[in-house]
């Protein structure tokens, strides 16, 4: 596969490490109500769609960016690639 890195352009997927569901960006607050239940959901439950999936890839052999890749798990078509840190900062700002 080729991943269109937002800063570096197309790169072979073998430069990357796959980690999975981008929901891992949304770590629960540790002292919120039911935090244990939230952490169990965060840690273990997955939507696992057959279709469009937002997921985390780490450019370990490149610039060490964490990317959020929107990819179709049936066709492997990649629809969007974003820097995780920008997405997270944007979310934090809200």
């Amino acid at each position, binding site marked *: 596969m080729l991943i269109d890195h937002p*800063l*570096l*352009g197309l*790169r*072979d997927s*073998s*430069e990357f490490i796959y980690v999975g569901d981008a929901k891992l960006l949304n770590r629960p607050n540790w002292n919120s109500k039911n935090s244990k239940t939230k952490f169990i959901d965060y840690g273990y439950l997955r939507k696992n769609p057959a279709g469009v999936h937002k997921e985390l890839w780490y450019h370990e*052999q*490149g*610039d*060490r*960016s964490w990317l959020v890749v929107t990819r179709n798990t049936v066709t492997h078509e990649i629809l969007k690639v974003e*820097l995780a840190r920008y997405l997270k900062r944007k979310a934090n700002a809200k």
Partner: protein
Amino acid sequence: MAKLVLKREKPLNGYSKVINKIKIAEYKFDSLISLAIPLKRERKCKINFKNSLGEPMPNIENSIINKSGILGFRIGLDLLFICNPSHSSFAKKTVPLLKQAFYITDQTGGWCGVKVDGDRVIEMLERICPLNLSLKSFALGDVKRTIMDQLNMIIFRETEKKFILFSPSSSSGSFLKSIETSSRNI
């Protein structure tokens, strides 16, 4: 007691060889440091970089060479490398200057450099480098970090047929073997 002196050793002991008309030589440098741009300080860093090295801070995957021959390249959003090939007042003067804006990490011992040069250099690199080396996508002065023959490498294009490759120093033996094999195999 005789004064104890520690000897400084290059990763490849100054290796140099020609294989299939490709010149392979250890690229020696006096120091190699990385600069991290503090959060939200890119502007300040740009000014500092220009003041310290006399050249504008390069964009990602680009490089500069200043008039003292110092090579600077940017490898990530907030990460640059400065490679100082020859002994100079760099450590005394420039580094403290850069420290005013950047976080600095000395990596001189961490990397091994090899310069490859010759008409068939692209053919050789094709055997290990997954990147497109055509000038259209890899211009002069470009620098990229990738994986070659299982090793994490930084590749810098000096001219159309001259490149400098950097790889972690602990695996410099495997790195050199990989380049030698590629040169022989074409």
